[in-house]
């Protein structure tokens, strides 16, 4: 089955992002005190560091649901007018160079912009 099957439904990170996303105060704290927030939600050191480093590959290897990865990047970079497009793309290019290069080649062929 696909990548989504790799998520660990019991991972504290997945509970934390669900709560943070819905709460403006926690969203602010995510930017100023991620380490404290991670401790309160019971994240492992590895989970905290993967999120801190904005590393999609490590996040998913640990079991963070793939859907939450771009949302974590949006928490860091903001989201208005797709303003995180290039920053998020850079994170994915670092983590998944082959897959992302293939997608960019397709985009160039289709001429669709980004």
């Amino acid at each position: 089955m696909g990548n989504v099957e790799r998520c660990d439904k019991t991972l504290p990170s997945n509970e934390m992002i669900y709560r943070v996303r819905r709460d403006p105060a926690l969203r602010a704290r995510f930017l100023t005190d991620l380490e404290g927030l991670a401790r309160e939600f019971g994240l492992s050191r590895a989970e905290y560091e993967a999120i801190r480093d904005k590393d999609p590959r490590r996040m998913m290897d640990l079991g963070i649901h793939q859907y939450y990865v771009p949302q974590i990047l949006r928490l860091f970079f903001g989201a208005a007018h797709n303003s995180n497009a290039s920053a998020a793309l850079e994170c994915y290019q670092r983590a998944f160079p082959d897959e992302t290069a293939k997608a960019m080649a397709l985009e160039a062929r289709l001429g669709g912009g980004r």
Partner: protein
Amino acid sequence: MAEIVAAMAMTHSPGLTGWFTRASQDYQQQALQATAEMRRRLVAARPDVVVMFSNDHLLNWPINNVPEYTVGIADEHVGPADWFDEWLAMEQYRVPGHSAIARWLVNEGARRGLALAYLREMQYDDGISVPTHYLNPDAQFKLVPVTMNCTVPPIPTPERAYNVGTLIRETLRAYPGNERVAVVATGGLSHEPGGPRYFWVDEEFDRWFLELLKRGDHAALLRECTLERMEEAGSGGTAELLAWVLVLAFTRGPADVLAYMPAVAWRSGTGMVVWNEIAR
């Protein structure tokens, strides 16, 4: 007896409102024309209610407790949810609900063996907000939102979605009122939100899937378009097409494909479809 009067489906990718102009002029034109045609046909069908089948993107339910289906039973629906408004570049909208039909679905569905969770206050991200922006911008039709799980394992199979569609169709028809009901599926086509292939679109799969809809042979579609095939074409995103398969159970015969765009810019295969005939 409520009457089903229209069935259609469209992509709900956030790019369709949030960063619409990042795609080519050609794609923008195609999307605007196809959604305008959907709206024209929806208005012509004169529905009182639109039942919209979308999926919850881990917004309304935490990952420890994800129901297969959820009905929004409010008298009024307000979106987009906090934090999603700027991402979707949408002002707040309000759409009247039809709580009597929504609650009927939950209770009569249970009597017929179908477990539908419900929310009195549902939060809305792209899944309901984007199609509402294009199809019901003046809130002239009441809304009953139904979300499904297609991202947290175990993901239901297309066969299961079709069977649930049949059950919901019969439950709606048994509603003790004369409402005219349109059904709209939202989601798809190929994409892999957040996965390693986040920026990829599988054009070949999309065109193949749309051909199956054009053929209108439900048994063939269910036989060939397995969950595994959907996952290969984009994990955790392409399976949003389960909403389309659910709505397929409301229809008969070929669908009109109004547009298809392999829109990497909007991060999703993008399509708009209307069925011509409703199942008897």
